[in-house]
């Protein structure tokens, strides 16, 4: 296996989908491993972190782990009660997440394992565990620099901008990118004629913000949860329509887009169709963007290009 790579251990949004009809894409919730020069960085701790933990325990050479949490919704932390390295002496684990203090971050992680929700608490973890609330400064791990930015999702949710060996990885698993634009379109009649120009400016501003954070990303891992029909029903749930995601990635000149956080109701065929539609859009817009149908187990070598 390559030295430096991204590996997808969980790509589903919201809740696990361990259904026969979903297995080609995979049913685990968000977890992505970034391995660079022997450093192991884990992005989110959904159920995908369970098989990652099993693999790391077998490997045993990599006992220093950094786990970065975007937020604490269940689909992003529910693998931790079953994360074997945490229960194994000799492992050294740093958790990073959004919180006013390290103590509050620790509490956010610990609460889901307290009685009566789980039989053993984080106090039983045998690894050497440390907690770090994200600060304004970037986190540096070997050649990797990770900075956070705020995403459009319920509660405080971060996206990660990861720079490594001249490449930019953006991790935005849950992000409703064009909420306000759709709302403005719905509400236009309620505004005076002379306010319409301001509303247009607001829409343009939002489009600009989205392309600004995606600009020139080499690897853009982004929420693409809903079809346009489902987004109409689920606007305000904190996730994007995949068509908005692919169009924004094109506008931002991103190089590779990894569709992520699929709706757990979508089976493999539905995700195939969704991915095919993104390819149509890319062709229609004559864009060089490469759009991946991200599935569990996919490995992207970072040294390839």
């Amino acid at each position: 296996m390559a030295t430096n790579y991204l590996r997808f251990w969980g790509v589903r949004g919201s809740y696990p989908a361990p259904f026969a009809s979903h297995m080609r894409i995979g049913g685990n919730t968000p977890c992505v491993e970034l391995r660079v020069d022997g450093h192991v960085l884990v992005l989110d701790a959904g159920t995908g972190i369970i098989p990652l933990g099993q693999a790391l325990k077998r490997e045993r050479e990599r006992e220093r782990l950094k786990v970065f949490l975007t937020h604490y919704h269940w689909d992003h932390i529910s693998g931790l009660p079953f994360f074997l390295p945490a229960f194994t002496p000799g492992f050294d684990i740093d958790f990073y997440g959004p919180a006013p203090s390290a103590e509050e971050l620790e509490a956010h992680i610990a609460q889901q394992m307290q009685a009566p929700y789980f039989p053993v608490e984080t106090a039983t973890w045998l690894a050497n565990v440390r907690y770090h609330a994200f600060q304004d400064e970037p986190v540096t791990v070997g050649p990797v620099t990770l900075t956070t930015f705020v995403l459009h999702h319920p509660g405080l949710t971060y996206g990660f901008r990861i720079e490594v060996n001249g490449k930019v990885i953006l991790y935005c698993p849950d992000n409703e990118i064009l909420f306000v634009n759709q709302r403005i379109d719905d509400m236009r009649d309620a505004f005076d004629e002379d306010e319409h120009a301001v509303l247009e400016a607001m829409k343009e501003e939002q489009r600009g913000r989205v392309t600004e954070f995606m600009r020139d990303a080499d690897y853009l891992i982004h929420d693409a949860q809903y079809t346009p029909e489902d987004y109409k029903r689920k606007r305000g749930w904190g996730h994007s329509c995949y068509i908005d995601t692919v169009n924004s990635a094109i506008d931002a000149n991103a190089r590779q887009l990894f569709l992520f956080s699929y709706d757990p109701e979508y089976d493999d065929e539905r995700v195939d169709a969704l991915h095919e539609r993104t390819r149509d859009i890319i062709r229609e817009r004559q864009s060089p963007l490469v759009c991946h149908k991200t599935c569990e187990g996919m490995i992207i070598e970072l040294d390839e290009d």
Partner: protein
Amino acid sequence: MTGKRPVIVVIDDSRASITLYERGVEALAVSLTTFESPREGFRYLRENGADLVFLGNLMRETDGLSLLRRLRELEHHSATPVVVMTTKDYDQDRTMAKKLGALEYLIKPVRSQEIRDVIEKYTGAERRAP
């Protein structure tokens, strides 16, 4: 509230939203101070009071509720009237804003008339003389 103009502070990194605030106060006898940088806005509020603060919730530098939490830690802003105006139409954020003492949680886009109504409601601001 005659003689003294209520001081309104807006922290929101959306230029278009600031324009709506500016239109909203046009007819009111208030003093409006706006900040597109949350850091600068917080620095200002650390040193100054306000009769009403409007906060965006989704800003590039930080989220408005984290800013509100820090604001509440300042003794002179522990009870300052705060209204959150945001694109985040989510219950989780609404609940947190309420816990931090926000008076209202408004979803963008908000009409300038509505901004005017909120200012009048919470500050008793008077209309400017024509």
